[in-house]
């Protein structure tokens, strides 16, 4: 683990979020340092997406504190989060189908030249960015609707890097990808860490988590269920934390089944 600083870039302390009758998050703590990849794992409905949306400002938290580089901040809308330097790649990508690749990459932070959109520089930089990430796209001027699922994912991740963020959140970035593209995305995650960015990686794929993450934070039923350094933690321990298995007869049986199934 490469800890550049002792103070986390982003920290959530005692975050809670309610949707009507559902307590989606209860007293959740999370720390992300610069140059650290934190894998956020948990079963379906554990609150991963809610936590991400809280950090991104889509659904602000009801209670708790968000700290940015040690000082408390309030994130009440997506713009606040962007201003701080958080870039989010959602599971449902959130790209505009009718805009082309360049338009989507720069959506919400268009480059301007004398008050007018600077299409030439945006196109040039978009091509440079895509090629440094070894991303293959037919043309940066075709509408997103004309791209395949994998290409859209790659565009969505590239888009997160345009604004020079400090924290990048990836919500299941490899879920819809083929073998080669998954490897590319994992390479990309490592490149982000080398650049000193903090990465929050949501994944169901333990192989991906073990491959790139430094720390694993487990959520279960909207609560923290342990934070482990990846190096010293076994696959089984993480699975146990996700499924909520503790040391009793019933859960040992459950754990045995899970591990057997995993083999």
């Amino acid at each position: 683990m490469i800890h550049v600083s002792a103070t986390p870039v982003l920290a959530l302390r005692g975050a809670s979020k309610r949707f009507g009758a559902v307590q989606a998050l209860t007293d959740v703590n999370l720390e992300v340092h610069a140059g650290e990849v934190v894998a956020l794992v948990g079963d379906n409905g554990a609150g991963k997406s809610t936590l991400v949306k809280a950090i991104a400002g889509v659904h602000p938290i009801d209670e708790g504190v968000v700290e940015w580089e040690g000082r408390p901040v309030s994130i009440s809308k997506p713009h606040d989060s962007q201003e701080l330097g958080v870039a989010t790649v959602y599971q449902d990508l959130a790209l505009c189908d009718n805009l082309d690749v360049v338009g989507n990459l720069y959506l919400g932070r268009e480059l301007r030249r004398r008050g007018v959109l600077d299409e030439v520089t945006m196109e040039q930089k978009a091509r440079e960015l895509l090629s440094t990430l070894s991303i293959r796209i037919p043309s940066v001027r075709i509408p997103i609707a004309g791209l395949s699922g994998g290409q859209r994912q790659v565009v969505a991740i590239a888009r997160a890097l345009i604004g020079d963020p400090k924290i990048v959140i990836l919500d299941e970035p490899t879920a819809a990808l083929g073998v080669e593209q998954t490897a590319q995305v994992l390479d990309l995650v490592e490149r982000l860490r080398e650049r000193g960015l903090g990465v929050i990686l949501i994944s169901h794929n333990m192989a991906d988590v073990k491959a790139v993450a430094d720390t694993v934070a487990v959520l279960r039923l909207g609560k923290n269920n342990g934070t482990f350094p990846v190096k010293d933690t076994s696959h089984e321990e993480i699975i146990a934390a996700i499924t909520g298995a503790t040391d009793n007869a019933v859960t040992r049986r459950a754990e045995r089944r899970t591990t057997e199934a995993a083999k």
Partner: protein
Amino acid sequence: MSDTTKTPAAKDAAPAAAEDPTAAAAAAPAVDPRLLVREEGFKGYITEFKRKVKGGELGSIPVVIGLIVIATVFQLNNDRFLSADNLSNIGYYMAATGMLAIGLVFVLLLGEIDLSVGSVSGLAAAVFAVVVTKNGMNAWLALLLTIVTGVAIGALHGWFFAKIGVPAFVVTLAGFLGWNGLMLWLLGSSGTINIPSDEGPVRLLGKASFLLDQDIIGAYLLAGLAVLSLLAGSFMDQRRRRAAGVPFRPTSEIVLRVVALAIVAFAAAMVFNSSAGVPNALVIFLICLVVVDFVLRRTSFGRKVFAVGGGVEAARRAGINVEMVRITVFAIAGGFAAVGGMFFAGQTSSATMLAGGGNTLMLAIAAAVIGGTSLFGGRGTVWSALLGMLVIQSISTGLSLLNMEASIQYMITGAVLLGAVVIDSVSRRSQKAAGRA
């Protein structure tokens, strides 16, 4: 948003490679061998054109075919249809409803509808007439007040839609009734207020007001200006793109476009000159088109409008203030409706209870949709207001040349509107199949 710049990368990278190796490296992997790139020369244009039509990107083809059919049918029935005087009439009368259509293009790009523009235009004319004739306000100041009224009404619609969450359809339907009522109340029992037509905006927008006082130079100046700006703009863009190492339009294509525009512009100028000159109302309409086109394609506000129309959630997550965009767009539609109302007042030198009523609203919506702006949001250009109005105004002028009754006019216009929406829906479906919607 145009993707006509898809020239083969190898060709673009070659000149750039000599001076800027990084640009060439950037360009090289960006092209996928599976992508259909346009071939060089005119054969390339034809194959690209065929592919686009198959993919449902019809562009202005239906409109051009429609215009040819309309012109042929009316000319066969009445040989005055293609006369300079009649064509000039079409040019003058299409400006008023065209203004409403410009505002509607904004709303349609969001995937919404504004049913109130007709009523707002009538109300605007009434407000202008009342403050000028009864309160003796300066005509230009009154024009400003009128436009501000339109913008405020539009913003109110937008506020109900964006902040309260009432469907735009319902808000503007209420506006359609309500503002019409307010107009009737303002006009009082007589139902008509005459406006002095010898000064101010009403004189400017009148039937007898022409660019440079009918000087023959006026029309050619306008045409020349349009051609020159396209020429200069295209070559400047080409130079910047070449320098930056990104694909650019080949010179042959620029020349082709400029020649096409020159033919159309100078032919139109000749027609107007052999009648009486270019009506000032049409000049203002054209200026508005150019300005709005620039705003939609070249500013970040325009980009936001397209983004909200293409995906509200994506736009919101990109940090775009969706509510503000929506309110602004409805305010713009209200503003253009008020300007359109002034054009109606200029046609008759009066504010009447009929202004903006009847089928005005339907014609404005039909114009925008016929011209190629999608009802489903996110796709379209403001030029559809011009193309659509040419179709609509040709039909209604042609039908009155043939002395058709209003009943027939309504039925035919209704059929044309339905036809345009069918084309929009079908082309959207085939675009989906071709992965382009």
